């Protein structure tokens, strides 16, 4: 496997997506779990329709942040050390491996966001404002979470904590994404410009992507 970088990225992403198609973890576990969480929240805080409409978007993004991590983590935890060694011996560029795993996570996270989003709109009666900006926000958040989740899963790989530590590492680091997403929606609702929030999220995505690509080799070699 000494082909070009993007060919390796495609191969890794394809492998991960194929594995997901066979196991169906995101489809059969993570999405229903996220939808269930959205269903449980009103039972705890009250079922007033006005209140739920008010908090619906924020609640949706919290669910995306907390449960979205599971998508990236689940994939990484299935890659054993011998598999990583084999990939390395075959000449897989560690950066290509990172980008490939992120790409497959991105696709799965987008699927998760759309499925859970449909449930949130149904249960909380959320207004869909500024569809173009909303789609852009969904993509940037999914990309940021995919990059962060894949990077932190690589960090905890080969340690005794396994993937249990990943949510503790990802949740606080994904706060700029959560802030950006929720504030962007509020901006759309009240007619404010949301460019600065999208730029904040894009900056986070850029920084994490750079760190992920630059540290892929040291992480693999150690």
């Amino acid at each position, binding site marked *: 496997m000494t082909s070009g970088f993007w060919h390796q990225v495609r191969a890794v992403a394809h492998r991960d997506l194929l594995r997901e198609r066979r196991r169906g973890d995101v489809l059969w576990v993570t999405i229903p779990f996220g939808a269930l969480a959205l269903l449980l929240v009103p039972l705890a805080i009250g079922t007033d329709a006005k209140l739920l409409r008010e908090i619906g978007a924020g609640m949706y993004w919290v669910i995306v942040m907390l449960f979205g991590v599971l998508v990236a983590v689940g994939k990484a935890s299935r890659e054993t050390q011998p598999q990583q060694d084999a990939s390395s011996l075959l000449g897989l560029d560690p950066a290509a491996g990172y980008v490939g795993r992120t790409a497959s996570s991105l696709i799965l996270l987008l699927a998760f966001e759309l499925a859970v989003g449909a449930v949130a709109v149904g249960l909380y009666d959320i207004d869909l404002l500024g569809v173009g900006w909303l789609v852009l926000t969904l993509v940037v958040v999914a990309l940021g979470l995919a990059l962060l989740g894949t990077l932190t899963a690589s*960090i905890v790989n080969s*340690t005794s904590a396994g993937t249990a*530590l990943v949510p503790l590492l990802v*949740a606080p*680091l994904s706060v700029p994404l959560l802030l950006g997403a929720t504030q962007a929606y509020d901006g759309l609702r009240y007619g404010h410009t949301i460019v600065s929030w999208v730029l904040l999220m894009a900056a986070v995505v850029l920084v994490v992507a750079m760190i992920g690509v630059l540290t892929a080799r040291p992480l693999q070699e150690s």
Partner: protein
Amino acid sequence: MKVQTRVRTWPWVAIAFSLVVALALSLVSPRDDVQGELVRIMYLHVPAAWLAYVAFFITFLGSVAYLLTKHLRWDRLAAASAEIGVFFTGLTLVLGMIWGKSTWGIPWTWDARLTLTAIMFFVYLGYLALRRTTDDQVLRASRAAVLGVLGAVQIPLVHFSVVWWRTLHQPPSILRPDGPAIQDPLMMVTLVTGVVAFTVIYASLMVKRIELLHLEEQLAEIERSTERPVAGEAVVVPELGRNP
């Protein structure tokens, strides 16, 4: 293998001296017209917050240096600084909550500075938790270094949060473009002395913690080395044909 056992005592002296000077000045400085005696918390709160920034920035620098050089001394620097940074971030939050309870009426408010500081605290708690997950020094160092770089993104967010968002927390008191906000000279001297004293405490704690980390690593190396007695070494193999 010989263990390096040189233990420095001057850091303890420096810590004690700095604490005495900072506390004495904070007690003799005048009371504030608006906040009253509560202003004295500021002489601990601001230096503690300053140290949190410094400590996590040093963790960032140590992490970058480790990734570039692979020398474990940089990892020790980053780890020691993160531990001290977590302590001082916790202290900042607790002191802020005590001040907030008396001034705002509630210990916690969902203010950008407070919330982001708490989040930074959890980021570095995660860093310390990660370090405890493996005994392999090189594996631990490389994993922690990446997180040390990633976590540093929080530092400017926390500092500039009071500028970027309209919050309850007041803007920076000293590091501001139009000069310090504190007008009373003795108050200013007390605050600056507090910052210097806390920085001395940080440096002293760093020396002691790095020393300790170095000794821990040496101990771990001895335990792994072949020089130590192996299990069963005391058992003498009986010679065939000879009954005791």
